[in-house]
């Protein structure tokens, strides 16, 4: 019995589908039950959260969590499917502190809201940036300019008029 089946057995209502991500067992979880499923997985020995990936599929958004158990050397992939226009899912920061930045990055680049995250702000792009670049409908035509504001923080604008230019 692989890890996804074990999770299905423990939480039959939360897990909607079992499959494989290439060679890793994958469990698709209802988005309301993600926190429970992740806590259960941690109980089963999955102590490392390796990565959080958000993928925009145009009709839906998927968030994929790759877990690993150092003790049993097992992999487990959790997947939640979210609404395309208003993707929202529970944050896992209470279970893994490492989820903090990974979720911020996913919010920043894919635009997924993690409810319960202590500080859900942009991390790679400056605050005030328009759009989430890894969305398929991201506007690539509009140029955005970043200048340094009063207190050293970045200021984003769409006209280049306030850029410093050499005369």
């Amino acid at each position: 019995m692989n890890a996804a089946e074990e999770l299905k057995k423990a939480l039959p209502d939360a897990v909607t589908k079992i499959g494989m991500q290439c060679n890793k067992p994958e469990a698709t979880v209802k988005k309301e039950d993600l926190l429970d499923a992740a806590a259960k997985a941690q109980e089963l020995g999955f102590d490392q959260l390796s990565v959080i990936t958000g993928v925009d599929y145009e009709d839906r958004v998927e968030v994929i969590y790759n877990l690993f158990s150092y003790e049993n050397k097992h992999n487990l992939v959790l997947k939640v499917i979210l609404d395309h226009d208003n993707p929202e899912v529970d944050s896992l920061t209470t279970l893994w502190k490492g989820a903090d930045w990974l979720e911020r990055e996913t919010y920043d680049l894919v635009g997924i809201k993690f409810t319960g995250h202590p500080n859900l702000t942009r991390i790679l792009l400056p605050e005030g940036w328009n759009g989430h670049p890894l969305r398929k409908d991201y506007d690539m035509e509009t140029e955005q300019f970043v200048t340094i504001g009063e207190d050293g923080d970045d200021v984003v604008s769409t006209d280049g008029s306030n850029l410093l230019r050499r005369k």
Partner: protein
Amino acid sequence: MQTDELLINMGPVHPSTHGVLRFKLRMDGEIIKDCQLVLGYLHRGTEKLGEMKTYQQVLPYTDRLDYISAFPNNYCYVKAIEELAGIEVPLRAEYIRVLVMELNRIVNHIVSIGSLLMDLGAATMIMWGFREREKALQLFEMLCGARMTFNYIKPGGVREDLPEGFIPKLNEFLEEMEMRIKDYEQLINSNEIFLMRMNGIGVISAKDAINHGLTGPTLRGSGVNHDLRKLEPYSIYHDLDFKACSRPEGDSYARYMVRIDEMWESLHILRQVVDTMPEAKVISTSKYGVAPMTGVPSTVSTYFPRIFTPPAGEVYTRIEAPKGELGFYIASDGSTKPYRVKIRSPSFCNLTALSGMVKGLKIPDLIAAFGTMDIVLGDVDR
């Protein structure tokens, strides 16, 4: 005595931040109360670029993530493609891949230790380190013409076979390196100032380290002996004799020592690889059919078509890069371009734990603890 809190802005351009990283420090006198990191000054949108290029065109971008050790980046991306499409790799190519990756690990640790010592105010080590690094870079140049951005490992194998005279030069380097690492240890290991700056600084417990998602030498410095080369052996690592190095203390000195130990292990691996390297044989078959008979038949790579469309699906693959666990997630929709590329970079994830580690320390200790995390900003910001 009550004093006002002071906000200090450190970076983005600061010699000890190893690139463009900014710390926002809230200080009570000399004590760090809170440390926030501001990233993104080197964000180039590699993941977005990945969606707009074909599979082969993404490969050169991976060199520019962790530019100190680019071979593991190359390899991990290629490994993801190979897993996705089920491409077989000739054994000799796997040996060459491990050879260059371990050589790169030594280079990475030299730079890491050198710049750590320089941050602490001792310039000798970086001069010594760069002297040896130069020799390794010359070997890389001999191999693929580039010194830092290689683009050498490709799906199905490697670009070219080892050039004539490479192995003797490598053996020379290994012999010299053995002497040099002894020199480094003599110079640094029991230096009193170094010990005072390192011992007990930036401590993180094993449980916290795992919970924060630390990997690589930074994790193993906390007494957790986890190495992906052992846990999920890839390439030819299951045939090689080596051990994962760890230290129980969890402080900066432990992380430094793990890197020294790993250099010894890498030398040991390199010797085995040189000794057991299989003979060069012409490769003629592959899943994608026989190569068109133009050009020279290859000894180190199976045929990889110019217009490459892997089956639709998802893959996440990870390796033990010198800085920690490097992972590539690729979602394919069956077209010539990846639908989504996600890079799990070791530097980014290791940095998560830094602000917790330095609370209550002084600024010079922040520099010491930060130096032993061994990050590269190209890898953090992507």
